[in-house]
């Protein structure tokens, strides 16, 4: 074998090995920190839990406990309810914002600047953003002071804080930007000529919105909905901080159970939460073929 042949054989080897070398770090990472923990979680959910210790003896007791307890089923229901409400409220607040930023602002620099403005609250920590709602919504908080000063209300509205409403307000504010971003991105990609063509064919703005703009922004809505869903379903901090521990989501149950070393039970809730998220994401992906649209 001469040197040229050796070189070509070597380069062929490198070429066949390269894809594996490229994928290896990521695959290893995912295997260690995603696949293994999920498998462990499923496994641990069938372990036997006694008050002070947990043993790898397989049993369905934790699962039975979950489905026979009103508290836990109520938490599942609260999680699903809050998820749906927050999904709708982020869409209601986020879509018009995205429509403005992505479509009505013609200047690309300005629309980028506006999107950056949406992200500014993320410069502070998540917990501070959540806790900042307390002085806003409290009995002697900013909103009540303003309402009374303007003589709109005579008594402070107590329902604003430490209720499900305050949790919804907090979550909507925190997760709205994840809805705005993808929608604004899709709207910004619509060829302005396409909208002008629809106008030229005689359609009014609302008709164009319904038949052209909204369908073309659907991939953005779906991506935004997936972002918001995954984050809201796994929430516990906002619910705890803004409801005074009155609103319990599945995430809050996990925190409590882990805190009292009930690993098997926490694992059951974890598996249920994972299944719910998987089903939600799968359902969204069925609505729009993202691979084709993006």
């Amino acid at each position: 074998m001469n040197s040229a042949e050796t070189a070509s054989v070597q380069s062929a080897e490198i070429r066949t090995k390269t894809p594996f070398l490229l994928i290896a770090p990521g695959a290893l990472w995912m295997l260690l920190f995603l696949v293994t923990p999920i498998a462990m979680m499923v496994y641990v959910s069938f372990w036997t839990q006694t008050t002070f210790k947990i043993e790898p003896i397989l049993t369905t007791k934790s699962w039975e406990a979950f489905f026979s307890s009103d508290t836990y089923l109520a938490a599942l229901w609260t999680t699903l309810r809050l998820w749906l409400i927050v999904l709708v409220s982020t869409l209601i607040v986020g879509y018009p914002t995205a429509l403005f930023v992505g479509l009505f602002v013609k200047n690309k620099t300005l629309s980028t600047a506006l999107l950056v403005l949406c992200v500014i609250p993320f410069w502070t920590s998540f917990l501070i953003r959540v806790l900042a709602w307390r002085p806003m919504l409290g009995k002697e908080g900013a909103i009540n002071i303003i309402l009374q000063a303007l003589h709109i209300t005579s008594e402070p509205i107590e329902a604003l804080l430490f209720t499900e409403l305050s949790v919804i307000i907090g979550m909507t504010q925190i997760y709205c930007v994840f809805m705005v971003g993808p929608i604004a991105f899709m709207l910004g990609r619509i060829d302005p000529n396409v909208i002008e063509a629809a106008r030229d064919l005689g359609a009014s703005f609302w008709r164009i919105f319904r038949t052209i703009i909204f369908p073309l922004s659907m991939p953005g809505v779906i991506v935004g909905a997936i972002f918001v869903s995954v984050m809201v379903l796994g929430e516990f901090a906002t619910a705890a901080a803004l409801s005074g521990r009155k609103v319990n989501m599945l995430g809050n149950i996990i925190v409590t159970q882990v805190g009292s070393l009930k690993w098997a039970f926490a694992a059951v809730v974890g598996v249920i939460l994972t299944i719910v998220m998987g089903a939600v994401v799968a359902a969204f992906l069925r609505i729009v073929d993202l691979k084709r649209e993006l």
Partner: protein
Amino acid sequence: MADVLRVENLAKSYAGKAALSGVTLSVASNEYVSLLGPSASGKTVLLRLIAGFEKPDHGSIHFQGTDVVNTPAHERGIGFVFQNFALFPHLTVYDNIAFGLTNRVINPMTDAHHVRDRVMAMIELVGLSGLEGRGVHQISGGQRQRVALARTLVTEPRLVLLDEPLGALDANLRMRMRGELRRIREQLGVTFLHVTGSESEALAMGDRIVVLDNGKIGQFDKPDHVFNRPISPNVARYLNCYNMFEGRLDGSVFVAGPDRFDFSNRMNSGGRPAYAIRQDLITINQSSAYANGETGLKAKYLASEYTGAAFMYFFEAADGHIIEVENHLSHRSAQTLEPGKHYQLAWKISDALVYG
């Protein structure tokens, strides 16, 4: 013939820079008008103003006798075909074409059978039969062009504005679509206002040609008049088939640097004097004497370009500017010229046009 469109004294500027100023023109019904202009001459702006996508700074636009300056685009009933076609990407060919009929504000069609009849007839007319169920990304560029045209024509506008409609097609398809566009227009009897940057397209397509010159109407006339008698040096330049000389008039002689040309056709265009001679009316001679009634100059031969039916020869005049000579092979045989050598270029005095 009644005028479908009358534009008067139309002006539009962007950031203080005038894109159009004082444009006045009338387009008759059942007429094919092509609008020729170099890039940034304001031709797209003019179309957008007529369609209603933008508002003029001043001036009026009368469409079928009524002033439409304050009518929003979707109530004007003027068709617009975009250069990039601007098809609705999420709809099928059929739904793209049916869009205007079912979604328009004025008199929308609700009977699905009537819509279907109209759309299928239009699909037949533009030659898209069998493709109505396809997505617009599953068809070729030429077919997309037909969808864009059909989508506009099916709403039966009296006037259709076409913004470089053939610009996105390859040369072969462009030639075929020229004939198609004329055929479809004649069959429907609508007025077309077709913007193009290509002089050959403008000459071939238009019953009349508007030449836009820096936001103003340079000339508006029949193609052969525009081609043979451009009324200003700029119009002659945009036609891309004239050799232009700048200089001054000295009695019956035009002085362009060291060269002096005789002339007989003088046009009073008001601007700086210019001398124009069409590229295909020049002969290349070895001798240095002019025949009776001829004038010309000596120029250095640079290179040639074979275009199939013709040869283009490039010469450099004494003052450095390039002179192009087109030699149609059907009239004359190809000439063998030596690069760097000087030849005498001659033309009939009566063929030259003088402005000033």
